[in-house]
């Protein structure tokens, strides 16, 4: 029972992290119509910056905040120097150009930080297990992730739905020319949105860093999950991304935790141990395949035919 609660919370935590990543991706795609494969690289940079700044300042919180700022800055610079030239082009051009950026970032990181990964140790106050319900303990850090991610999601909701800037963002998503005609500085808006997306990716990266290692190529693996989430949730829909992310996070975590045992009930032990890891990894994709068969536009698409 304890195990189920723990895995449930792990799934929630993973899902929220995925949401942060997917939200940035879907924002940038929904508003600037830009497919950014290098989003995973920003996730990676967030983690690397965090590990570096935390080690440099000796303080976890300050290091994380600095890293957040650095990733935001990196995103803005990237948009300004390279990505803004891609607006309006074929999606294939986006794919290629940002693919080139991935190659660049991976090697740049290797040059600066070396091929071995980094570690991001947690301060003592974050490693204590917290009693959430009598008898059930959960690591403070993972709780912190859940809290922070939910807070960010809430902030995102408020900004996009209730503020003037958010209105511009939503309007910009449906009619770019009109926004330009209103005299709003579209270029600045786009740069800020991209920076926001980068910060979200970086935040996800640095939050995940203490749990997994910080290494080259970490962005690519998780980027694919972000894509799957957007497909399941529906493009352009942040609400869809949220629900799909939680769903995917749960299925993946619970699947990996309980599928091997489940299989052992049905199949022989050897068959189960060979099939289980492969099947667990496949679970998400099977889910995506099912959604595609039933609802090709995603579960909560922004528009319907």
């Amino acid at each position, binding site marked *: 029972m304890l195990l189920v609660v723990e895995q449930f919370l792990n799934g929630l935590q993973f899902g929220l992290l995925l949401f942060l990543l997917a939200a940035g991706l879907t924002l940038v795609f929904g508003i600037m119509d830009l497919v950014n494969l290098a989003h995973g690289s920003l996730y990676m940079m967030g983690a690397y910056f965090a590990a570096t700044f935390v080690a440099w300042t000796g303080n976890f919180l300050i290091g994380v905040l600095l890293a957040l700022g650095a990733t935001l800055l990196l995103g803005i610079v990237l948009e300004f120097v390279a990505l803004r030239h891609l607006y309006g082009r074929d999606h294939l051009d986006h*794919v*290629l150009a940002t*693919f080139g950026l991935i190659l660049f970032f991976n090697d740049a990181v290797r040059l600066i930080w070396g091929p071995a990964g980094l570690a991001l140790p947690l301060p003592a106050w974050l490693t204590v297990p917290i009693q959430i319900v009598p008898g059930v303990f959960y690591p403070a850090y993972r709780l912190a992730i859940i809290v922070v991610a939910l807070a960010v999601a809430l902030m995102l909701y408020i900004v996009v739905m209730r503020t003037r800037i958010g209105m511009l963002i939503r309007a910009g998503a449906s009619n770019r020319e009109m926004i330009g005609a209103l005299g709003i500085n579209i270029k600045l808006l786009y740069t800020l949105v991209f920076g926001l997306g980068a910060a979200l990716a970086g935040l996800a990266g640095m939050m995940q860093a203490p749990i997994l290692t910080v290494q080259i190529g970490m962005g*690519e693996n998780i980027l*694919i999950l972000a894509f799957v989430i957007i497909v399941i949730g529906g493009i352009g829909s942040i609400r869809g991304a949220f629900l799909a992310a939680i769903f995917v996070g749960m299925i993946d975590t619970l699947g990996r935790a309980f599928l091997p045992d489940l299989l052992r009930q049905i199949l022989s032990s050897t068959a189960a141990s060979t099939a289980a890891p492969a099947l667990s990894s496949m679970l998400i994709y099977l889910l995506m395949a099912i959604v595609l068969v039933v609802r090709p536009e995603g579960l909560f698409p922004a528009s319907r035919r």
Partner: protein
Amino acid sequence: MIASLNARTALVALVAAGLLLLPLYSSITGNIFVLTLFTRIVIFALAAASLNLIMGYGGMMSFGHAAYLGIGGYAVGILANEGIGSGFIQWPVALLVSALFALAVGALSLRTRGVYFIMITLAFAQMAYYIVSGLARYGGDDGLTIYKRSDFGGLINLSSRVQFYYLCLACLFGGVYLIWRIVNSRFGLVVQGLRSNEARMQAIGFPANRYRLVCFVIAGTMCGLAGALLANNTDFVSPAVMYWTRSGDLMVMVILGGMGSLFGPVIGAIVYLLLEEALSQVTEYWALIMGPLLLLIVLFGRGGIVGLLGRLSRG
């Protein structure tokens, strides 16, 4: 128009001649490395050509094409591992499994369009990567060594570098010829029309997804052949060959050479792989140069190399 055609034809003729005479050059100079390098290039050219069929002619931007390199390779590897060394069994199996995978993935992915399609083909290819990584019996992440190349009886000896090179070249030329015929056939015109204006094609009576699916399967099967060749070339197969960045490499080759042109992908493969080779001689961090280079190509190089030649001849 005539001038640009001549420049293109000249380049193609030159490249074809060069590829045919390469083993001669290699034996004269004693440079074996260039032969093995170009065997690899020729195999990837076949893979790129198959991708061009669906991307350049069909307008289907598949980001999961490297999966078939892996499937073809593992078909050969797994069968070899289980004691079935005959190429007459391994290669048809490689083609069949590639076709089936393409059928399944295509049937699901073609329900979507545009960027969705790109993401989904990417996701399915990664799924295949994870499945294969999980096959502990066949090496998992570390890959599978192939101790003996595919056996074709007395017909051809794949262990001979020269014979193997010519086999790969024959597959490449055969594949390109097949694509040429397909593209100009009834089927090919439909597929090209679908790329050009799907609504119009549906309005005149063509069920889009059926034709796209068949095209997708043909391309996947052809790439499966490339996979079988690749496994034989390296005497080794691992999940890394189907990692999604490899699919990106294939896309770059197609676009670099010029999408929707018959020899574009061949030229693109040659240029990309030679560039990669050259850059890695110069520096260990060749991606630092290659990355921004790709970006610049996208921003300034419309139509790839073949398109560039056309523009140079005209102006």
